[in-house]
């Protein structure tokens, strides 16, 4: 399913170990790591080596940092140990129904990847949610669809972070007077505008706003500047699992 051959992916261990992949490559490579014990072991060993290189990079600490760190952790409960497979099974149970819903909605479902936990990837959720935090979230769930005009879009949803990320690959540039608009759909079917992108280059965006209560993510082609309501039928719809 992946356009990258296995051999190509193996060669990414080094770049992955030093965080030199873009978000999309990283998600793909982490899927590969789930299946390739050799790569996983190599990544760990290369990280050990990289950690030694920066051994001497110690820097004097800002004076109040210690107090700030210690007082903030006093207010944060450490996460419980993870049970990596639960989230996956849970999602898999839900997906048949969701896939049917998607298929009914015009598009071709190219494949549904289910996010799971990558023991070698730290997950950094924090105040400001970045795309990579969503992609790394322990409960991240992916689904990918082929776009009718070419290219693919992948939606990654983290219920715990309450955010959705959309990643596009090889999505053609929208016509000059058009944009791709991203929508969050609520249980009543109302679409809320959540961002736009122009296509033409691979893009990763965090959708605007909270996701809770949303049942799906849609992508439409809209007049430049975007619309408040979809004016065309969706190019793709992705169901979101409810927390």
């Amino acid at each position: 399913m992946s356009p990258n051959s296995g051999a190509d992916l193996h060669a990414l261990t080094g770049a992955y170990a030093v965080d030199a992949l873009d978000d999309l490559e990283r998600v793909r490579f982490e899927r590969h790591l789930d299946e390739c014990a050799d790569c996983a072991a190599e990544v760990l060993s290369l990280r050990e080596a990289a950690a030694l290189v920066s051994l001497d990079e110690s820097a004097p600490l800002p004076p109040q940092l210690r107090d700030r760190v210690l007082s903030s952790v006093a207010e944060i409960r450490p996460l419980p140990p993870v049970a990596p497979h639960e989230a996956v099974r849970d999602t898999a149970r839900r997906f048949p129904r969701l896939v049917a819903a998607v298929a009914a909605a015009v598009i071709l479902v190219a494949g549904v990847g289910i996010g799971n936990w990558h023991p070698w990837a730290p997950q950094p959720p924090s105040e400001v949610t970045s795309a990579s935090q969503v992609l790394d979230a322990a409960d991240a769930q992916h689904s990918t669809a082929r776009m009718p005009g070419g290219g693919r879009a992948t939606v990654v949803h983290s219920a715990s972070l309450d955010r959705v990320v959309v990643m596009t690959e090889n999505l053609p540039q929208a016509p000059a007077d058009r944009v791709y608009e991203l929508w969050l759909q609520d249980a009543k079917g109302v679409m809320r505008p959540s961002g736009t992108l122009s296509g033409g280059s691979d893009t990763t965006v965090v959708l605007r706003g909270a996701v809770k209560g949303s049942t799906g993510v849609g992508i439409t082609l809209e007049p430049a500047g975007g619309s408040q309501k979809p004016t065309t039928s969706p190019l793709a719809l992705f169901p979101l699992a409810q927390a």
Partner: protein
Amino acid sequence: MTQLRAVDDGGVAPSPSSARAEESDRLATLLGRSGRGDEDAFAELYDTMARRLHGLALRVVRDPAQAEEVTQEAMVEIWRQSSRYDRALGSPTSWMMTITHRRAVDRVRSAEAATRRDATYHEQNQTVEHDETAEAVARNLEGARVRQALTSLTETQRGAVQLAYFGGYTHTEVAGLLGIPLGTAKTRIRDGLIRLRDALGVES
């Protein structure tokens, strides 16, 4: 030739690998206690690791104010994730550096940060001139070993690894910066790290 200085307490330098193993055990224990909410253990972890983590953040992010934020976020993240640390995930040091590095790279890649970083860089680039990896070394036994290991990389491998690890660039960007084909950049990064690993005798 190289002046070797024993790590902290003068005396007889312990062999690097056994000292490292002991230190790893100690840090793993502290992580385990932190995961159960032990703030004293975490404070000890901070006192052991924060300078290094901050050094790494500063190296990648460059802007001192942003580096400080990255270090703080990373330390809090380490606290949150501490119960999930497992020896199978590598040494405690590498695990914590990985979390910090990732944070630093995220920061440096965000557009807003890039602007701030450039502005700061131009304002105060005299404070961020510490560049070449080799220069950063030679403070202690491990440093000397690392410097030695770095000489086993070719010039081009070293350049690619540095841009990726300390520059926070993606391999695609590294290829662009060096004017080499994409596949070559990822291979150089990987080959460079493999040589380094083998020269350092990293076991994993």
